[in-house]
């Protein structure tokens, strides 16, 4: 656990006045507030730091202790007595109109979480000076869930374990790689009756050797024998999620030809019964281990082709 320089975080020197602290905090909070930086973990982390710095420096008692013992935080036990007598802010969250600034906690994201350094010096976040009447929203949690393409093809239930809690969720068919869903209230519990934080789940789809997904469309490659490619015929294509489809191959089909099967691709997210398209690229395989008779016939073909 390292010493945290709260003055440096707010870009201030140790002689900063309360007005300067408020101004610096206000400026940085507007820049890094989670509501203004959706899906930006770095901004969330930065906001947490400036929130903590403000929590300490805007409170005369905490600031005094920090200035006196901050760098020597191991002696934080000395503050134990002080922790039992929470001072500072009381009552409801102040409004800029009557408070001349904001000295309440934020609720937009991870601002309610404090570093180990803070906890060591001032005790738990709910006992180190926060008013017992002020409600704080719980911390948001982030989680990543790996899914195979087949998992994402169907709507299915799944149980997640987040911070020791089992959460049963239903994953809708068609979720995309990198997509984030929010489970309201499944983050950390709120403080003093405040609402719980949210749980953000990022889906990570593992690449599939056979299928490639492009939005709601699927792409696959299918080997095709030379004779069917030249003369035409029928082939069978597997469909993701089960089932097979027969396709007609036109005579003289070229290598790399792609065929589109409408509505046989990936399910469209939260649109029941809607699917993207399936693209099948044909890869013509030349025959191997030819018999003498086959070679002779190919030579005949070659001779015919040269005559024409």
């Amino acid at each position: 656990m390292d010493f945290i320089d709260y003055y440096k975080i707010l870009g201030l020197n140790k002689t900063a006045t309360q007005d300067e602290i408020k101004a610096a905090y206000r400026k940085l909070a507007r820049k890094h507030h989670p509501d203004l930086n959706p899906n930006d973990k770095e901004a969330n982390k930065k906001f947490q730091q400036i929130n903590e710095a403000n929590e300490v420096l805007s409170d005369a008692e905490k600031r005094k202790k920090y200035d006196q013992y901050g760098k020597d935080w191991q002696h934080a036990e000395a503050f134990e007595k002080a922790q039992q007598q929470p001072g500072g802010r009381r009552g409801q969250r102040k409004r800029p109109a009557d408070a001349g600034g904001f000295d309440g906690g934020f609720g937009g994201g991870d601002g309610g979480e404090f570093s180990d350094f803070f906890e060591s010096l001032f005790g738990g976040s709910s006992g180190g000076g926060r008013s017992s009447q002020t409600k704080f929203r719980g911390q948001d949690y982030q989680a990543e869930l790996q899914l195979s393409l087949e998992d994402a093809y169907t709507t299915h239930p799944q149980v997640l374990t987040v911070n020791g809690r089992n959460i049963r969720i239903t994953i809708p068919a068609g979720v995309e790689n990198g997509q984030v869903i929010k489970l309201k209230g499944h983050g950390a519990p709120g403080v003093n009756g405040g609402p719980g934080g949210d749980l953000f789940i990022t889906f990570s789809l593992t690449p599939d050797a056979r299928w490639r997904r492009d939005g709601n469309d699927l792409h696959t490659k299918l080997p095709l024998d030379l004779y069917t490619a030249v003369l035409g015929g029928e082939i069978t294509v597997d469909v993701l999620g089960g089932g097979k489809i027969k396709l007609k191959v036109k005579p003289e089909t070229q290598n790399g030809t792609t065929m589109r099967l409408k509505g046989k691709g990936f399910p469209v997210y939260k649109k029941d019964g809607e699917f993207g398209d399936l693209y099948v690229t044909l890869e013509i395989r030349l025959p191997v281990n030819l018999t003498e008779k086959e070679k002779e016939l190919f030579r005949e073909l070659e001779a015919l082709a040269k005559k024409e």
Partner: protein
Amino acid sequence: MQQGELIPAGVFCEYHHAELSFIRGLHDSGLIGLTMQDGAVYLPSGELPELEKFIRLHYELSINPEGIEAIAHLLGRVNVLQEENRSLRNKLLRYESGQGPVEPGVEL
């Protein structure tokens, strides 16, 4: 406007220590929806996440309603761009191996 359970605006304001005039202002700007029933103002529950965000911006960051309107617009753009970015990243995978000419398939 998102619908859902209706919450009396007065109760919501008391809980969040917010002024009803602020919420009406957001409604007038088209940022949230309100429902009137028997002369009382109600908030559809689906509006709450956005409304709580606007309240934080106003009361905690001292951003005025005009600023909130601009921010809401820009956040909407950010969301669209983040979606587009994600979609393009996924599409990139497709082009890594190239793609041949496309012909409509005939399903038998």
